[in-house]
């Protein structure tokens, strides 16, 4: 693999949390990667797929395939969107052998940000400094579909000035779940409040995660509860000096 990477920033980072994308690019460039941003990118189609609209998800997935066809290596600041591409695209194209072959090629080329750093770039220490006490939230799709647990912790362990305090349990869902958060709003909110109890129990000032969708749910609930605890994507932590 060369030193070129294409960013898939995800629609939610693009529209709501652009700093996360900029910080991810910054960390990658500092490590010597040539970073590009295929401008035609939009969304992976997960909202439609998870809501039961497979034909619509397939349409968006096709667009994604075309957009990243020539990218050697794609990095995304999300376990959930990476898993959509790497695990669920194939389900959408079972009846199209040629597209399926393109999907299988894509699966090998897309990486979630933290795993890309530890497994492809082979670094644990990116030279970051953040004087803060943080706790880490394991996002479900990253944890259970991609098996990401050690990578972000290895990276956080090398951030100067940072203390990681694990919450109990770290691996319980925050209640976001995409359209679930609005279809079952009250239930989703109750799950978020259980999550923030675990967060507040650590005494940390900051919750770090790999998916801005979960962090939006957590920050939204923290903010509603009047808490000063903030959320940060791992890319923002690693870009801190």
């Amino acid at each position, binding site marked *: 693999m060369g030193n070129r990477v294409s960013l898939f920033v995800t629609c939610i980072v693009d529209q*709501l949390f652009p700093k996360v994308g900029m910080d991810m690019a910054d960390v990658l460039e500092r490590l010597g990667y040539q970073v590009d941003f295929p401008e035609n990118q939009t969304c992976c189609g997960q909202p439609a797929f998870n809501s039961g609209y497979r034909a619509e998800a397939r*349409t968006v997935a096709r667009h994604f395939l075309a957009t990243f066809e020539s990218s050697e290596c794609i990095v995304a600041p999300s376990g959930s969107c990476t898993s959509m591409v790497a695990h669920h695209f194939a389900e959408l194209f079972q009846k199209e052998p040629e597209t399926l072959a393109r999907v299988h090629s894509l699966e090998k080329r897309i990486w979630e940000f933290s795993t890309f750093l530890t497994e492809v770039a082979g670094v644990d220490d990116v030279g970051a400094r953040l004087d803060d006490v943080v706790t880490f939230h394991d996002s*479900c799709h990253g*944890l259970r579909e991609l098996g990401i647990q050690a990578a972000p912790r290895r990276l956080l362990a090398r951030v100067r000035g940072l203390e990681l305090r694990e919450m109990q349990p770290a691996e319980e869902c925050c209640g976001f779940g995409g359209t679930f958060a609005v279809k079952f709003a*009250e239930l989703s909110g109750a799950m978020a409040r259980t999550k923030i109890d675990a967060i507040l129990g650590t005494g940390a000032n900051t919750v770090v995660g790999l998916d801005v969708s979960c962090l939006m749910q957590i920050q939204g*609930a923290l903010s*509603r509860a009047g808490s000063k605890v903030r959320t940060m994507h791992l890319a923002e932590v690693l870009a801190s000096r």
Partner: protein
Amino acid sequence: MSVEFDRKIHDTLADADLQLAIYTATARLKDKRIETVAPDALPDYQELRTQANAVKKHTIENLDYYLEEFERNVEAHGGKVVYAKDGTEVADFVLALAKDRGARLIVKSKSMTTEEVDLNERLEHNGLESVETDLGEYIVQLAHERPYHIVAPALHLTRYDVADLFTKRLNVPRETVIEKQTAIARSVLRQKFLAADIGISGANFLVADSGAVVLVENEGNIRLTTSAPKIHIAIAGIEKMIPRAQDLATFLKLLGRSGTGQLLTVYTSFLSGPRRSGETDGPDEFYVVLLDNGRTRLLPDRGKRQSLYCIRCGACLNACPVYRKIGGHSFPWVYSGPIGAIITPQFMGVSHEPGLPFASSLCGACAEVCPVKIDIPKVLLELRSDVTKAEAREKRNRLEKLAFRAFAWLMTHPRLYEMAGRLAASVAPPGSGWIRGVPAPMNIGPLRAWLSQRDLPPAPARSFREMWRRR
């Protein structure tokens, strides 16, 4: 989602005592499971899961063969196998047998399959007395409720609730000490066991090569139910089959640990046929009722038929952050939790409660703990697709369909996607703080739902792609 489903969820969330009861009970079961399947406690746990999955996959794909083998072996031991299409056929069989033998009183051991076909109601409606003998089941039967949890039916009731219930229904002085409550139930139930004409049990496993019904329990009531009365009827879903007695070495190791965090349950019974000459215990007649009730409909579906691998351990309920909030009675049918969310729509049809497959954050905690490795989130996703297809056919929920068509169109037109994003940002409230509320005309639909629970992130001055172009 139906109004009723929504209301039950709301009511459960609003009941602080119930929330604590559910959370505490599931936490205990969850933690005990984790201890007994930890690598130092059970080094080959993952291999056992893989093996159990392979055995179930093979059995379900060859179910016709094993059903016939099971039937031959049961009959060779002097028992009889009865096939029932649905609950009516189960009840008809039991009622006809009871009438012929002059039976009045039935004792029952815990069985989700009999709950599934409302057997007690059907029998009592026809003048028979049917008494649950598992303590938790006995309690929920007295309360005229359904089991709250697949393995812990009275999980939602405190000892004070039970005290009230016993006083009211059994006419005994109020007793809040659990051991004494157990003694009350025991004294009532012991008389029932001695007087019963028929014992009805479920089955944890049906073993094809030995024609045996395998039952696990902790209270000893199953032993009494299946051996004291003259007639024993085991009622089981056809998917409870496993090919060989030796497969139990895999399944029994997984079932106790996954269900209650026990290495094995206190009793494990292997029942094959009625009492033989020279034996002192056991029934004179032994029947196995094999229930379909929608199960064969799943067999042609490659993706979803894995739902039939379930051994009803309940581990997915304890692990599920949704079950732990909404409890068992919010679910529209007898099966609750993640497994209920996938089998209810398949047994009853997706229109029974179209919201059910959507009542999940797809966190995957269920699949992680499933001892037979059912990919529950994958089945939920397929069911969601089935629901939207049914809605399209029936011309329901058209606004949502339209919204996702618009979504797909926008996401394949990057320039328009960018314009739409900026347009949305331009009407967002100004400022850099998280947003508590929006003006009334905007406070509708998903935005309103989001804001009902959480604050909303502020719109950034520029999107990522704008920032990227400028750098």
